[in-house]
């Protein structure tokens, strides 16, 4: 592993046993994350974003199993210097050494990660007491501070609230406070701001950025909101059907996307100027991963698909030093194909705005 790499996922594949058969949810995922950097993972609903993160945390559901791969993690904290494969740790070691302390996760569904019969104050203090033996008084003070930090007013009174007494967005912020309580080195945010209005969203994103700068932590964001991606990400990985189909610097993905799925994703997003009677959607439905996927999983929905797509899975082609995409369109023998004209126009408009902004 490179020196400042904190996380390296290599060839990860995961499947679930269900009544309808074996679901191959993750089919060979690879990516690296450097210390202090932010990667955003975007992609189709059901493409495997959350499952990948749960694998990092060692909390796959019981019907899931890892078929191959490594998740290497390197900590800078004193009692653990070597790279370790998180997949090799048992539940107890994960709980004692990793979860909450070094890697913290903000879950997509806040209700499932909060204890309904415990006050939120107690839940924020729990990790500090367990990992660092923080005295009660100090933990209490820090918990109130954290609540204020995530923008909850009347923080002291709210300490005594139970989760159901809070609004959706407040619960989400409590989960964020819990995650930050133990100063993790890697923060995983699965749709952290989905339930928040834009003003508080902006505040939380800035808060995470701030903490990131101060403590040099790395962040993985999973989000459907491409505006959020634009704001926070250094790198972007695009997932489709259990694989990363494109990855690169945020500017490369937004202004020079190469994979037809990424084209579709960017085209489907409405912006404030959208007035069309219908929004653009990617035609067709995602593949059923119970069946074996032959060739490129996106081919049936891809109007640019080539013959070879139905037979052979495309490798990752390198576009620049930092930009990769897995589509046969990038093969030297493929017919030259540009992104759809509507998207091209939109990219041009964005670049225009950016230029105007710079002046």
């Amino acid at each position, binding site marked *: 592993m490179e020196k400042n790499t904190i996380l390296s996922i290599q060839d990860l594949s995961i499947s679930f046993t269900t009544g309808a058969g074996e679901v191959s949810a993750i089919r060979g995922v690879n990516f690296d994350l450097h210390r202090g950097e932010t990667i955003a993972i975007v992609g189709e609903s059901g493409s495997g974003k959350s499952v990948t993160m749960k694998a990092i945390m060692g909390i796959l559901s019981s019907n899931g199993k890892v078929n191959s791969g490594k998740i290497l993690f390197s900590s800078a904290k004193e009692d653990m210097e070597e790279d370790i494969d998180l997949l090799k740790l048992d539940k107890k070691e994960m709980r004692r050494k990793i979860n909450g302390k070094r890697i913290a996760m903000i879950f997509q569904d806040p209700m499932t990660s909060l204890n309904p019969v415990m006050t939120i104050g107690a839940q924020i203090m729990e990790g500090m007491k367990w990992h660092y033996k923080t005295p009660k008084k100090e933990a209490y003070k820090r918990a109130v501070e954290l609540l204020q930090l995530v923008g909850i007013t009347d923080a002291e009174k709210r300490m005594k609230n139970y989760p159901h007494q809070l609004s959706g967005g407040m619960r989400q912020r409590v989960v964020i406070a819990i995650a930050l309580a133990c100063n993790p080195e890697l923060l995983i945010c699965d749709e952290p701001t989905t*339930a928040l*209005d*834009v*003003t508080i969203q902006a505040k939380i994103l800035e808060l995470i950025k701030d903490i990131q700068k101060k403590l040099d932590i790395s962040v993985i964001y999973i989000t459907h909101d491409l*505006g959020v991606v634009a704001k926070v990400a250094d790198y972007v990985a695009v997932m489709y059907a259990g694989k990363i189909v494109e990855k690169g610097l945020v500017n490369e993905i937004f202004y020079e996307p190469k994979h037809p799925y990424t084209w579709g994703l960017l085209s489907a997003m409405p912006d404030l100027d959208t007035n069309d009677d219908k929004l653009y*959607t990617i035609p067709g439905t995602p593949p059923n991963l119970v069946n074996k996927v032959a060739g490129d999983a996106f081919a049936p929905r891809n109007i640019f698909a080539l013959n070879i797509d139905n037979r052979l899975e495309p490798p990752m082609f390198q576009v620049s030093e930092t930009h990769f995409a897995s589509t046969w369109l990038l093969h030297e023998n493929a017919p030259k194909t540009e992104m759809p004209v509507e998207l091209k126009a939109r990219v041009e408009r964005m670049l225009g705005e950016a230029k105007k902004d710079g002046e």
Partner: protein
Amino acid sequence: MENKQPLLSVEGLHQHFKVSRSYTVKAVNGVDFVIYPGETYGLVGESGSGKSTIGRSLIRLYNPTAGKIVFDGENISGKMSKSTEKHLRTNMQMIFQDPMACLNPRKKVLEIIAQGLDIHHICKNKKEREDMVYQILEKVGLSKEHANRYPHQFSGGQRQRIGIARALIMNPKLIIADEAISALDVSIQAQVVNLMKDIQKETNTAILFIAHDLSMVKYISDRIGVLHLGYLVETGTTEEIFRNPIHPYTKSLLSAIPHPNPIVEKSRVSVTYNYVTSGIDYAKGSQNHIEGTHYVLGTKEELEMWA
């Protein structure tokens, strides 16, 4: 649209929660609005401002502290008769913000989606019931095979669509969609929004669309209400609000919309608004007419200042 009978009218709605003897949360403080058949009303506002609470009061998960709610010609704000309650339960459906919290984990998706049909004995036989479920699953972008899985075996976005399917299958007159699409990827968001628009055209369903994604709200809504601390601070057509926002909260909200343009977004700062330091007291303000259907909450002095 104005001379038609509204489908829903809400007058002076208050919803307070007593948390302890000394602490009452005043979640909703005198809210008035109407929704016409076939219309989409967008409700936006700060987290904790009372949006979900309004939805939950309308569908009568709570007893409103004060106020009058008339739905489809029937008063649903006080004690309801059996027939009024049935009318409400079949014709008004809510898609909840927290999908996991409202889907029974021990029931298969087929049962969950068919629940409303079963309670109100809508299907003649098993086959009809199954067909209806399969059809709606397809419409929300899931497939037949998903019908026999349990909620925890789905991704977040797939789960959200189960909630959407469960509401749509009842063919209601009013759908309350509480952050119904925010957990979905943009392509499926677009698919669901197109679907809601189609259904709306077909059956003239009205939608109360609660969301924080303002580009989607702008796209889908005919009219918008901006809620802050349980007060509607600004209301009007989508066009009026976006062209000419007056209230400082609305302005800060619009300025905080993230643009999917990395170069612009990395350097942009949004306008902030702090109620506590602003010196504004919502309780003192009244609704001021700006133009057309555009109203803003404030005192005369405040309005002069904001203009």
